[in-house]
């Protein structure tokens, strides 16, 4: 997995690419997320359009980021969730936790 990030309209957008399965690749997403949290950037979107799949390690990173931001008056939202990841969110009931949007624009609008 690799990732890029950018900011648009005061919202951080993190774009991982590949598979999130644990090990060094998963640390990359975790570290990037916490880098923004430490910079007090509290509106975060994770764009999942280019993530082939993730396992419970990836879900754990999303939840950890979600709860950390929520506890600091921030929010983590998902955009462009692929069918495979949507299926995992459904079977784990995490679909009830995360706000998910069909596009980055919709996700950004939801913050304003």
């Amino acid at each position, binding site marked *: 997995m690799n990732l890029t990030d950018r900011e648009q309209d005061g919202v951080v957008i993190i774009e991982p690419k590949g*598979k999130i*399965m*644990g*090990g*060094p*690749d998963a640390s990359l997403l975790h570290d990037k997320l916490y880098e923004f949290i430490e910079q007090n950037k509290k509106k975060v979107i994770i764009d999942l359009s280019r993530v*082939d*799949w*993730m*396992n*419970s*390690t990836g*879900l*754990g*990173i999303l*939840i*950890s980021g*979600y*709860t950390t931001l929520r506890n600091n008056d921030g929010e983590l939202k998902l955009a462009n969730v692929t069918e*495979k990841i949507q299926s*995992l969110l459904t*079977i*784990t*009931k*995490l679909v*009830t*936790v995360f706000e998910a949007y069909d596009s980055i624009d919709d996700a950004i609008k939801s913050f304003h």
Partner: protein
Amino acid sequence: MDKPIITGNTMIIPSNQEFLADVDVFLEGVLRGYGIDESRVADIAISVSELVNNAIHHAHHKDTKKTISIKINRDKENVIINISDQGTGFNPEDINDPLAEENLLKDTGRGLFIVKSLMDKVDFEITDQGTSVTITKSIK
């Protein structure tokens, strides 16, 4: 042992997360060779990554001197994969329900639940020598 060894459809890796991606490349290569559709390939790859992660963290407690073997087989209707470790074993019934309200926001504890959800059959054999998990997925 400091790097993966592949013999036929079996891969043995040192118990280290560094090799998860190697397992995935090996596994997906064999599965595509069987002509399995991409959705099932992903389900199997997710499940194997969960079981290898479990072996590294929970069975071997990150002891990189231990090894994990991944053996892939198929018959006419199923892919059958065995993941064996050298750990102390565990009781699969002792795992907390990840869907319970109090566990929903925990960042761990979903691995085995996901494997059971994605696979058609999951069998455990736990001995003094380690844990052997066999997963079966229909390919028809």
